[in-house]
């Protein structure tokens, strides 16, 4: 599905952040990226959909039997590929003044002809699909509210609906629940997990209990390479190895 080979990326000051990243993710997997702050997890995600351009290596996406290289593409080709990759951010990144419904419908922009989207807006059919997506994440009743009136968890679910509308092969999640309280985080993840039936999900998470409960696989990044790639219930030894000198403090088991 998505193959990353030999990815490397330098920081603006010259230091090598990512050295040689290699992994492969298939549909149905819910992969958790973990590692120290600043090790390059977000940069890695952004290299996958081209928001950041890697220095070396390649990223290949293959959702329909047609493998396509992402890096190096520009303009129309890049947009074509991007519409098959959904991304949700830590802050949900909705357009605050627009309604929830409109925010979700912007997920279709990669599929709509630019001329039509500028003048006419969206068709009734697109409105329907947006409402279905909203229903899938349980916030259909908020469709006509202005996006800024929603809570953080609700906004994140709207962001997921927006990504769903793209019908992506892959969903990238950059610390999607980092700014939510545990209860809301669980709600969001409960809606995220079932999506693996249609796509692969790669997410950056810091909470081990989330990783253990929802993910099918965990990839740990350290010193610019993949240090761990395997079962989501990561042992404490591996954790301290990957996190190095500063393992994060988190509830190790539920209910603690």
């Amino acid at each position, binding site marked *: 599905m998505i193959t990353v080979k030999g990815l490397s990326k330098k920081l603006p000051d010259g230091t090598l952040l990512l050295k040689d990243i290699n992994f492969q993710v298939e549909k149905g997997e819910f992969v958790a990226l973990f590692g120290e702050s600043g090790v390059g997890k977000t940069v890695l995600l952004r290299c996958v959909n081209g928001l950041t351009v890697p220095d070396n290596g390649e990223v290949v996406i293959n959702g329909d039997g047609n493998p396509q290289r992402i890096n190096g593409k520009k303009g129309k080709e890049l947009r074509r590929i991007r519409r098959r990759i959904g991304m949700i951010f830590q802050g949900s990144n909705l357009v605050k003044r627009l*309604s929830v419904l409109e925010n979700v419908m912007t997920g279709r922009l990669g599929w709509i002809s630019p001329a039509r989207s500028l003048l006419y807006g*969206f068709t009734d059919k697109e*409105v*329907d699909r947006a*409402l279905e997506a909203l229903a899938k994440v349980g916030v259909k009743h908020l469709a*006509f509210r202005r996006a800024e009136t929603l809570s953080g968890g609700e906004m994140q679910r709207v962001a997921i609906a927006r990504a769903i509308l793209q019908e992506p092969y892959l969903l990238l999640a950059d610390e999607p629940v980092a700014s939510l309280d545990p209860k809301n985080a669980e709600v969001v993840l409960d809606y995220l997990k079932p999506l693996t039936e249609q796509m692969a999900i790669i997410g950056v998470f810091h909470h081990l209990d989330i990783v253990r409960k929802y993910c099918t696989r965990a990839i740990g990044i350290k010193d610019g390479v993949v240090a761990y790639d395997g079962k989501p219930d990561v042992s404490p030894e591996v954790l301290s190895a990957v996190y190095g000198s500063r393992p994060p403090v988190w509830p190790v088991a539920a209910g603690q």
Partner: protein
Amino acid sequence: MNDIVLLEAGRRKAGQRYRRYYERYLWSGGFLALLFGWSMVDLGISARLFIEGIPHFLVLLAEMFPPNWQALTGGKVLWSILETLSMAFLGTFLGAIISFVLGILAAGNVTPSRAVREAARTLMAVERAVPTLVIILLLLVVVGLGPFGGMLALAIGSVGMLGKLFAEAIENVDPKPLESLESAGATKMQIIRYSVLPQVVPSFIANALYQFDINLRAALFLGVVGGGGVGFNLHMAMSLFRYADALAITVVILVMILLAEKTADYLRRKIIGQEVLQ
């Protein structure tokens, strides 16, 4: 079966609701577009006029260059420049004095009475509504042609804006210094002098300097209707098709504006700078 019908009705309603809220913008936009189209037709404007104008534009440019510096000899233009500067300077000065008084009277926290406040506010609002053209034409009858009328028109024209800004600044002062002076037994005058003014004078001066820039440009317009200044010279040159002269005059005007704005900037920085030091 009923559920499906309800679901369908719900779906259609959602589409309609989306349309309806878009429609408000569509209506306003459509209305504006209609107004625009009608105005264009009514005024007789079309793209053709624009295209036909391009050769005229090039001809004009050819006739303007090189500028005729001879037009500047004889001192008439330079004297007009001095007139324009004087009009703007004095007009702003006088206007600032009047605005100062009116502003204090119009500020709720320092005015002697509510009636006075309302009167002052109304005066300023009325002035803002009356176009400067009307003011200058009336003044020309009273004091005749020339920069005196122009200066008075600029002075009166500044009062509405400067006075309003000043009154608002006064009303927004930190009330605590006022209260402490009041409880110490100071008179109204003393309170104004020692706790209100120090807070608002810097912004007043900055606004007045900004008004000077505005008045300098307005003075150009006044010259055309007889209020003195270099606007008259420029208009004359253009009307007589002496385009090279006009370009020379334009250059001098631009230099004048540049120097005046630099001076105003310098003064503004000096005033604000002094305040920061204090």
